[in-house]
């Protein structure tokens, strides 16, 4: 491979430039290794965070050709060939301290804001001297969230984080999901209530977090799960959740969106009235509300909704087992087939 030009962000938020370093590197060199070689061989003043070099510590997240990536996990050759350049910048949505190092305090604050620890139900104390029973099926309920390494790639990639400081961000919400589905946790309702009326519905469902995540945690999918659970448990009380439900009932009823109904169901009757000027303005410009007749052949639609309502997947997601929905969780008092003792035997 010929010499690769690395265009690297130097400086901080106030003053920065891109500095180009030429480096001879084999194709399969991780970008982190290349950056460390630049430090060792060309310019020791270049600064970045790094530690494990095996995608488990989460230190080296940065933007490579605009995408939030772990530098240790992104190889020079494929990336350079795909884009014809290698532009390396610090993560977005966080103040730049210097070069590729950002201030992660806001990110960690959001992580802590979801109370990332078990809040046991006083009515169900932890078994003394024993582990809580948990089936492999219950472990599966955590989905991919235990893989999260808090690298903040998703946080960097998220447009909702950029737009609204109230948004907790994909990582914190995926972490919240991890506690919501935990059969040992007793704060199911409180946790969902915490996000139902603020953070949850600020997610744009753009899926950029899924694309950015180096550990395949799929935060956006967990946010959708949380939305389902929150609507079920807390109810649709604010615009975002009501809008989602209105969409669903609208289509269920007529197979098409009824936009007048949609606005009323989302904003309420007063909200609908408040939108009248906007409606009139639209009509003046020749944009009218759709007036299609309802769809009569609803067979396919029913199939879709059966799928959504079906007990198989959705019920599973609405309430984690161990809360009496599916009843497949062993309780500590279940006689027979006891788990191995926690203490030494």
């Amino acid at each position, binding site marked *: 491979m010929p010499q690769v030009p690395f265009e690297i962000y130097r400086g*901080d938020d106030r003053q920065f430039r891109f500095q180009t370093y030429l480096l001879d590197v084999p194709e*399969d060199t*991780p970008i982190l290794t290349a950056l*460390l070689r630049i*430090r*060792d*061989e060309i310019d*020791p*003043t270049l*600064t*970045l*965070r*790094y*530690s*494990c*070099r*095996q*995608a*488990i*510590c*989460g*230190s080296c997240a940065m933007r490579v050709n605009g995408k939030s990536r772990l530098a240790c*996990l992104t190889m020079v050759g494929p990336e350079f060939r795909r884009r014809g350049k290698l532009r390396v910048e610090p993560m977005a949505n966080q103040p730049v*301290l*210097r*070069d590729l*190092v950002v*201030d992660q305090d806001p990110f*960690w604050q959001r992580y*802590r804001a979801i109370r*990332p*620890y*078990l809040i046991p139900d006083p009515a169900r104390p932890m078994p003394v*001297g*024993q*582990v*809580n*029973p*948990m*089936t*492999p099926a*219950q*472990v599966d309920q*955590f989905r991919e969230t*235990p*893989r999260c*390494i*808090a690298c903040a790639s998703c946080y960097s990639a998220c447009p909702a984080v950029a737009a609204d400081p109230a948004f907790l961000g994909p990582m914190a919400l995926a972490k919240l999901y991890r506690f919501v589905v*935990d059969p*040992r946790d007793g704060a199911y309702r409180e946790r969902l209530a915490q996000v139902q009326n603020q953070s949850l519905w600020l997610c744009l469902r753009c899926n950029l977090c899924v694309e950015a995540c180096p550990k395949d945690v799929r935060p956006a999918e967990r946010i959708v799960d949380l939305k389902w659970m929150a609507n079920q448990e807390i109810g649709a009380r604010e615009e975002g959740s009501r809008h989602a439900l209105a969409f669903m009932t609208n289509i269920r009823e007529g197979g098409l969106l009824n936009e007048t109904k949609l606005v009323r169901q989302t904003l309420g009757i007063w909200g609908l009235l408040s939108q009248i000027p906007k409606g009139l303005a639209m009509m003046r410009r020749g944009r009218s509300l759709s007036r299609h007749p309802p769809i009569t052949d609803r067979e396919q639609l029913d199939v879709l909704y059966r799928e959504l309502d079906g007990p198989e997947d959705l019920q599973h997601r609405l309430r984690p087992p161990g809360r009496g929905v599916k009843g497949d969780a*062993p309780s500590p008092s279940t006689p027979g*087939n*006891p*788990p*191995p*003792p*926690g*203490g*030494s*035997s």
Partner: protein
Amino acid sequence: MRAGLEASRAGVDVGILSKLYPLRSHSCAAQGGINAALSPEDSVHDHVYDTVKGSDYLADQDAVEILCREAGPTIVEMEHFGTIFNRAPNGGLDRRAFGGATYSRTIFAADRTGLALLQALYEEIAQESRVRIYDEWEALKLVIGEGRARGVVALDRRTGKIDGFAAKAVIIATGPFGRVYQHTTNSYASTGDGCAIAYRAGALLKDMEFVQFHPTALPGSSILITEGARGEGGILKNAKGERFMERYAPHVKELASRDVVSRAIVTEVREGRGFPDGTCHLELMHLGREKIETKLQEIVGFCRNFAGIDPVTQPIPVYPAQHYMMGGIHTNPRTESSLPGLFAAGEAACVSVHGANRLGANSLLETLVFGKIAGANAAAQSRSGPSADFAVAEITAVEEEVHRLWDRREGESPAKLRQEMQVAMEQDVGMFRDPEGLSRAQRKIRELKDRFQTCYVEDKSTVYNVNLTDALELGHMLDLAEVIVAGALARKESRGAHVRQDFPRRDDAQWMKHTLAAYTPQGPALSYLPVTVTEYQPKERVY
């Protein structure tokens, strides 16, 4: 963090300094699991025996008894803190086999057990109002006053500010220093800063010559392939297609202790039975896609991302790499070091529970068990004793020292010196040692220490200056490398991970004792300490 949690719950104020964000600490890279004798056929007794045997009889048996006795309660506690362990169909904990263990006693969370435990602990400690975590502060000096540890002087990596942290007790839990070697599974941050500052302040180091080489690392990057891969049934083959471990450990084969398997791989390659790239192969293909992808998820990722191979269909090329330091700050089973007020736990410490060779999945256990003990004892000691205070002059002295390095206008780069150290340690202080090589390494380290006095930090920024911290860490590593070499040169026997080609046998009459090293300006001064034996008299190790 386990120590901090315990101290906080005992009612004292705790400050945790970490040069990384705590979740980035190298414990996150521990893959395979954590041992506890929980199955009906297993017992604490067996766990103790396996650990002592694995240690080649250098472990202190009273300490090992604590380790194994506390294993069950530790697992339960971590589960109650929220750790998501893999489960058996009956709702109990799943277990896997690990090297050197009579029974399957390794509890695990896929192949990211360290990450799972670290997260649970970090999340548990988030609730503690008495704990304050100082992210990205790097300790540079342990302050001693009136013969006691009085706190540390540390550097705020974000601002370059140097400040003092006075304390009634100090616990060092800074992990390993594998970066003294060229090929190591350790993270870049594993530079032994805590061990080095304790050593310079007068604390004794113990058994530093015992360096574990993990049998299965990816060549080149030295990324670890967990022992769990063999625990789940993976086998090792040489280029002739032989399952060569049948010759070295006829009974347990791939699941012999790590020193035995590592030596077998190197021997196969040296005697011409390795693959052309100088490796042996770890085969998982026969385990099937489902088992590999569910129980060894991270390994699949490592192989695909860092070696370009798919372990479901292809063998994994492996070669040993430095992995673990059995040695560290000398402590007793109460985690007290040789300096009053100074405690140590985890890989930075040497209690010793691992002796001359650590068994897999005993290190996460050690960190938690002795971290908790350290926290409790340090808290108890903090309730009495002199108040937490030291002179500002201690801080200015460190500032001046750092500035002497930083203000220099020319000299060699720390990177160059570091690379020379790593090559010397790799070549001459590796798995097979001889007096010529060790002497050569000793001369080289001394030369590098001299050259370090004139090395040059080009980056003059105060903000996140890795060039500066690299240089300071190199100073730490050179001190520790010197102790490793001195211990290895003095120990005229082969025991566990320490193999002297001129003394190929274990010599219990002369050498069943711990090496202690004290700092002197001329280099380490060695002395020795008897091993605590309670139940198991040494005998020959056969796997």
